[in-house]
C-alpha cells in the first residue's frame, strides 16, 4: 500500500506539464533513434546532455530515460521492414520479423512488437517498482564465475537458433568468438590480431556486424535477383493488425519474454541484446511448431521484442539503487544524473523520493505514450514497403552506410560493413545462418572475462569455479538441455535429420 501511495505521488510529479512534455519529447526522440540504424541511444543522450543544464533536473532525467526505453520500441521497425536492425537489441527480430514482412504480415509483426514492448515494459516496471533494492542486492551474488557459466551455456544453447545444420551453426558461433578476440583486450592490456592497424584495436562493433550481415546482405540479395521478385502482397487496412490466431500465439511469449528480459537486465553486459536472443531460443523450444521459426513465426517477434523492453526497465535497477551502470546506455544516464547534481545509489530513494518515484511513474506514462505513438505509425511504415524495390534498396543502403559511419566516425568501419554485407549475402546462399555469429561475438568476451576473472577469484582451481552453487546449477541445466537434445536427435529424427544436416 505504501508503494502505491508513493507511486501515486510520483504520478502527480510526472503529470505536471513540463514533465509530461519532456517525457513526450524523450519517447519521440527515442523512437527516431530506434528507427534509424546506427544512431544509438548513447550518442543521442550525449548530444542532448549539454542542452539539459537549463532544464529542471527531474524533467531532464525523465526525457533521457524516455529516449532510452523509447529506442527499443523503434528498433524493431527496420528489422521487420528491411532486415536492417535499428538497434543491436533488435538483431534477432530480423530472423522472423523480416520473413513476416515478406509475406505481407509486416503490420502484424510491427503491432505485436509494439504491444509486446508495452506489456513487457510494464512487467519490467512493476518489478522495478516493487523489488528494486532487494533485486539489486540479489543480482550481486552473480560474480565472474557465474557470468562464465551463463555465457557458456548460452553459447551452446543459443548457437542454433535457426537453420537446419547444427554443424554450420556451431562453426558460425565459433567464428563469432574469434572475431570478438580481435582488438585491444582489457584483461591482458595487449592488442590481439591487429597487425599494427590502429583501427582494428577498437575491435568489431556488434552493430557494424549486424548492419553488414543482415542489412547490406539483404540489399545485395534483393537487388541481384535475376527474376523479378514477387511483390509483397498489398495489405488491406483490416489486415494491418494481428489476427486472432496471431494474438493467441503471441500472448504467452510476450509474458515469458518479459520475465526473461527482466532477469537478464539485472546483470552486467548488453542485457537487451542478450535477453532478446535468449527469449528467441526459449520460444523456439517452447513452440509447438519450431519448424516455422526463421520463416515468419510470430512468436519469434513477440518474445524477443518483449524481452528487450523489460530488460531496459531492469537495467534501471542496478543504476538507481546501486549507482552501477551495467551498459553504455545506463552509463550515459548516470552522467545525466550527475550533471544535475544527483548521484544514484542506495540513498536515492530516501533522499530524493519525488525524483525517484516521478521518474518511475513517468516510465509508466512513457510506455503508454509509446504505444499510442507507435500503433498509428505502423500504417505509415507499411506504406514504405509499397516503394518499388529498385528505389527502396538504394535508399536503405545509404541510410545503413551513413548510420554505420556515425557509430565511430570511421571510414574503416564502412569497409567492414560492406565486407560483412558480402559475406552475409554469400552465407545466406549456401545455408549458413549469420545469427550464431552475432551470438559468438556478444558472448565470447563474456566467456573469456568470466573465466579469467573467475579463476583468479577461485585461486586458479577450475573445480572450485564450477562447483560454486549457482555456477553448478546453471551448468547442470545446460548439460541436461544438451543431453535432451541428443536424445531427441537420436530417437526421433535419426534418419531424416542426417540428410538435412549437411
Amino acid at each position, binding site marked *: 500500500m505504501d508503494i502505491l501511495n508513493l507511486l501515486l505521488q510520483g504520478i502527480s510529479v510526472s503529470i505536471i506539464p513540463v514533465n509530461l512534455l519532456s517525457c513526450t519529447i524523450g519517447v519521440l526522440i527515442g523512437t527516431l533513434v530506434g528507427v534509424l540504424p546506427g544512431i544509438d541511444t548513447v550518442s543521442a543522450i550525449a548530444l542532448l546532455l549539454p542542452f539539459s543544464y537549463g532544464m529542471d533536473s527531474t524533467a531532464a532525467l525523465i526525457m533521457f530515460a524516455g529516449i532510452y526505453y523509447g529506442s527499443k520500441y523503434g528498433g524493431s521497425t527496420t528489422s521487420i521492414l528491411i532486415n536492417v536492425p535499428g538497434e543491436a537489441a533488435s538483431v534477432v527480430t530480423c530472423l522472423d520479423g523480416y520473413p513476416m514482412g515478406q509475406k505481407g504480415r509486416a503490420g502484424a509483426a510491427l503491432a505485436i512488437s509494439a504491444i509486446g514492448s508495452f506489456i513487457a515494459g510494464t512487467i519490467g516496471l512493476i518489478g522495478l517498482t516493487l523489488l528494486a533494492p532487494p533485486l539489486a542486492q540479489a543480482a550481486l551474488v552473480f560474480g565472474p564465475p557465474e557470468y562464465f557459466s551463463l555465457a557458456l551455456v548460452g553459447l551452446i544453447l543459443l548457437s542454433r537458433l535457426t537453420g537446419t545444420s547444427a554443424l554450420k551453426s556451431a562453426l558460425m558461433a565459433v567464428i563469432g568468438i574469434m572475431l570478438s578476440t580481435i582488438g585491444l583486450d582489457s584483461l591482458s*592490456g595487449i592488442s590481439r590480431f591487429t597487425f599494427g592497424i590502429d583501427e582494428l584495436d577498437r575491435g568489431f562493433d556488434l552493430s557494424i556486424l549486424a548492419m553488414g550481415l543482415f542489412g547490406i546482405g539483404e540489399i545485395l540479395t534483393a537487388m541481384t535477383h535475376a527474376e523479378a521478385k514477387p511483390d509483397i502482397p498489398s495489405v488491406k487496412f483490416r489486415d494491418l493488425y494481428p489476427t486472432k490466431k496471431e494474438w493467441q500465439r503471441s500472448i504467452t511469449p510476450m509474458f515469458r519474454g518479459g520475465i526473461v528480459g527482466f532477469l537478464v537486465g539485472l546483470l*552486467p553486459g548488453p542485457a537487451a541484446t542478450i535477453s532478446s536472443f535468449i527469449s528467441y531460443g526459449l520460444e523456439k523450444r517452447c513452440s509447438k511448431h519450431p519448424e516455422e521459426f526463421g520463416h515468419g513465426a510470430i512468436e519469434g517477434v513477440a518474445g524477443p521484442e518483449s524481452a528487450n523492453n523489460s530488460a531496459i526497465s531492469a537495467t534501471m535497477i542496478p543504476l538507481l539503487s546501486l549507482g552501477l551502470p551495467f551498459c553504455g546506455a545506463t552509463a550515459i544516464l548516470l552522467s545525466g544524473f550527475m550533471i544535475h547534481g544527483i548521484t544514484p545509489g542506495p540513498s536515492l530513494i530516501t533522499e530524493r523520493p519525488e525524483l525517484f518515484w516521478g521518474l518511475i511513474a513517468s516510465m509508466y506514462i512513457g510506455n503508454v505514450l509509446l504505444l499510442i505513438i507507435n500503433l498509428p505509425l505502423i500504417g505509415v511504415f507499411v506504406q514504405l514497403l509499397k516503394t518499388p524495390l529498385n528505389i527502396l534498396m538504394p535508399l536503405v543502403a545509404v541510410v545503413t552506410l551513413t548510420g554505420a559511419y556515425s557509430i565511430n566516425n570511421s571510414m574503416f568501419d564502412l569497409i567492414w560493413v560492406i565486407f560483412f554485407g558480402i559475406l552475409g549475402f554469400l552465407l545466406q546462399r549456401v545455408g549458413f545462418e549469420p545469427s550464431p555469429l552475432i551470438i559468438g561475438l556478444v558472448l565470447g568476451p563474456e566467456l573469456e572475462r568470466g573465466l579469467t576473472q573467475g579463476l583468479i*577469484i577461485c585461486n586458479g582451481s577450475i573445480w572450485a569455479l564450477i562447483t560454486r552453487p549457482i555456477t553448478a546449477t546453471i551448468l547442470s541445466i545446460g548439460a541436461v538441455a544438451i543431453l535432451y537434445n541428443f536424445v531427441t536427435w537420436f530417437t526421433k529424427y535419426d534418419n531424416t535429420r542426417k540428410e538435412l544436416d549437411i
Partner: protein
Amino acid sequence: MENKTVPATSKYPDKPITLIVPFSVGGGTDLVARLLEKRALDYLGQPLVIVNKPGGAGTIGWNEVAGSSDGYTLGMTGVEIILQPLYGQTKYHYPTALDPIAQIAELSIVMVVQDTQPWKDLDELIRYATKHPGEIKFGHGGMGTTGHVAGEMLAKSADVRLEQVPFQGSAEATASLLGGHIQVLFTNPASVKEHVKNGTVRILAVASEHRLKDPVFANAPTFREQGFDVVCSSWHGIAAPKDLPVEVKDKLAKGFEAIINDPEFQKNIEALGFEFSYLGPKESQEKWITENQKLSKTVQETGILDKIKAQKK
C-alpha cells in the same frame, strides 16, 4: 585533416576547431569535452566540433591528433598518453608528439573494501595480506589502468602479494566488490561515493598527494600519510599537435583557460565527480615529463610491464 599548410596565424581561428575525443560517446572524457563545447564560441571565437574516435585505449584518436598540423585538430588527453607508449609500440610517442594546452581536472584513485570485511584500516589489511599471501584480490578497471597501477604500487611498497582481477570498467568491478567476489577495489571516487556515504563500502586510502576536497572523502587519509608510496592519478586535458605556431598556441591556451576557469564550468566538472584542477600549457608540460619518468619506472618495478609482456610470446 591532411592539410599540412600552416594556418595564417593572425586570422586564426577562422573556421570551427575539431576536438577529438579518443573515447566513446558518453564516457568521462566525452562529457568534459561537451562541457567545453558549450562555451567555446564565446571564448575561442569559433565553435568546437566534437568527434569521437574511440578504441585502442585512446591511441586511435591521438594518432590522428599527432598526425595533423593545421591547428584545427585538437584532442582530449588522459594519463594513457603516457602509459600506452610504455606498454607497447604506439605509432607516436605521445608525450613528445603532442603539446599540452591545458589540464582541466584530476582523477584520483581510492582504495575501498566492503564494510563487512574485518579490516578497519590499511594497516590491518596489510598485516592480513602478509600472513595470507595471495588471498586478497583487488579489482580494477582494466590491465594497465591507473587503478591497476595503484594496486601494484601498494603491493610493492608494502611488500605483500595481492592478486589483481582485471574488470572492464569500474561499474563491473564495483559490482564484484559489493557481491563479495573480490575483497579490495581500486577505483575513481565518483563510482563509490554513494556507497561510502551509505556505509556499505569503507574507504581505506587515497592515492593522491593530498586528501580529496569532497566532504565525503575528506576524512580518508592518503597512502603517503600511512607510510606507503602510492600516488597515481589520471587527468582530463587538452593537447594540440607539436610545432604549432606560437601565436596559435597562445590563442588556444588563452581561450581554453577562460572556458575552464568559468565558475559555471568548474561547478559542472565537480558535479561529474572530478577534482577541478587547471594547469596551463607550461605546468602541464612539466607534469607530463615528471609523470613519464615516474610511471616508466613504476610499471617496470611493480612488474606490470612483465605481466603485460607475458601475455605475448
